[in-house]
């Protein structure tokens, strides 16, 4: 990975509210717009107060290389995301990015199955774009608690990808988890070896994805969320446990440097 990361104050160009607790904003930053790869993230700091002290990590969701902006999309969780929701065009945000190792394109990939759980969908647009440009077929599966939290389905439909939706309350798409339609689809695959799962979502969702790769034999990658002290390898706080580490191998990997995208078989998702 060549080190393209920068630290920069980015003006907010546009601010959007997509659901009761879901917002997105465009940040002006030609460098990150240009260099970010699918699955990478930026680490944001709003304001100069000590609380919250640490930066907050967000996937690079969309970008326009020509116009020189990128977009982040977030769900309001606590103090940091609440402060972000008060931002307006003209305000400024401190950004470090792009960070992390993104999704990796396996050799012989024919069908990319993108699976987003909740706000995890924010990690997928760049990936969809890249694959479609490379002539790889893309199918998108999105699950959320309810319609209000189901973001970007219109975006993916517009790309021409096939899109399957599920909400737990049934307000949009199938009622229930997205795992059911996904499993159905995978069972019907003609060439499982040329198919790959790319997923991002909450903890329980990722556990289900790992299980699905095991049960179906379809390989996959997961983008995980951990607490991050820095986002670029100096705090060593974002350790995740490796699965079956050999005695001579690392016992932990760093979510910010070695991830946030891992092979579904690579790490342990415990509580």
């Amino acid at each position, binding site marked *: 990975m060549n080190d393209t990361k920068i630290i920069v104050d980015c003006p907010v160009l546009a601010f959007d509210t997509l659901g009761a607790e879901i917002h997105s904003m465009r940040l002006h930053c030609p460098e990150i717009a240009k260099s970010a790869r699918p699955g990478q993230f930026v680490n944001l700091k709003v304001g100069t107060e000590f*609380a919250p*002290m*640490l930066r907050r990590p967000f996937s690079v969701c969309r970008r326009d290389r020509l116009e020189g902006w990128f977009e982040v999309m977030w769900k309001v969780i606590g103090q940091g995301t609440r402060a972000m929701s008060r931002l307006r065009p003209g305000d400024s945000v401190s950004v470090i990015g792009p960070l992390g190792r993104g999704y990796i394109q396996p050799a012989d990939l024919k069908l990319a199955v993108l699976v987003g759980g909740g706000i995890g969908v924010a990690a997928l647009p760049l990936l969809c774009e890249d694959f479609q440009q490379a002539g790889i077929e893309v199918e998108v599966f999105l699950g959320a608690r309810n319609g209000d939290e189901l973001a970007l389905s219109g975006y993916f439909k517009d790309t021409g990808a096939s899109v399957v939706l599920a909400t737990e309350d049934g307000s949009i798409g199938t009622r229930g988890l997205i795992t059911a339609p996904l499993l159905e689809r995978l069972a019907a695959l003609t060439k499982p070896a040329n198919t790959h799962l790319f997923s991002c979502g909450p903890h329980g969702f990722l556990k289900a994805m790992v299980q699905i790769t095991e049960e179906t034999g379809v390989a996959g990658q997961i983008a995980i969320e951990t607490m991050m002290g820095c986002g670029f390898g100096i705090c060593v706080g974002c350790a995740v446990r490796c699965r079956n580490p050999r005695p001579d191998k690392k016992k*932990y990997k760093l979510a910010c440097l070695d991830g946030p995208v891992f092979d579904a078989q690579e790490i342990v998702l415990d509580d």
Partner: protein
Amino acid sequence: MTNLSVKIGALSLKNPVLVASGTFGYGQESHALTNLSALGGIITKSVTLKPRHGNPPPRIFELPAGMLNSIGLANVGLDAFIRDKLPFLRTVDTTLIVNIAGSSPEEFAAVIERLNDEPGIAAYELNFSCPNVKEGGLGFSQNAGVTGDVTAMARKLSKRPLIVKLTPNVTSISDIARAAADSGADAVSLINTLVGLAVNVESRRPQIFAGTAGYSGPGIKPVALAKVFEVAQKVDIPIIGIGGISNTQDALEFLITGATAIEVGTANFVDPATGESIVAGLVQYCQRHNLHSVQEELVGSLAMWQELE
């Protein structure tokens, strides 16, 4: 023109702003984000004889004005440090201080002897104070006798100035600092983290795997300043101040209280250019106050209040 340079025993720094061990990796990680040569010096992540995996996650947790960490001295180990990390660090135009940790005096000895042969290192900082390893760690600098013994041993072996890093989790930090001074330390650096705990009230488990952890950041600054004050009053040895330093004003508080240099820690996670900004801020402050030398006119210039009548 203000003279920012300071002397810490035999060690000269072009300015008093260092980055603290474990909060700046091995320099290379922040290379793209700040001008490393603006710093007075870089202190490496603690190096141990063998590589260490570190502690299981969760390792960090955020607090209202700081954070908890229990990294467990995860590091690449001495061999990989020399092979993979030192070459880059040597290319940076600043003073390099290697922080050494170990769970026994023998481990400290082995690391010092090996590093003595490596060029490009200006001094060693001995981490006698990590709260996050079961063996040794905190124990060393919670005891004046042990601190004195291990310092004396290191003094005999070391070709380079020694900075002994102290824990604040003691009744009398000046007693420990005195033991280090009497045994040949060139300086003491303080403070390492405070022992802290946070609890998840839903799962009723600690927020950090290991249970208690190290508390760092702005919330520990008042404690760190009080410890620097105590040592400055009672022991005649250069002090490097550490604890919650996030901006020029914080750095000034430490220098005025009696620290000859300072280390920026947790603030690097938020902005790795904090040290660089502080150097610029010190210049401005000194010009505004017409100070010509940090060492002679600023360090230890604290004046106490006088009772009226």
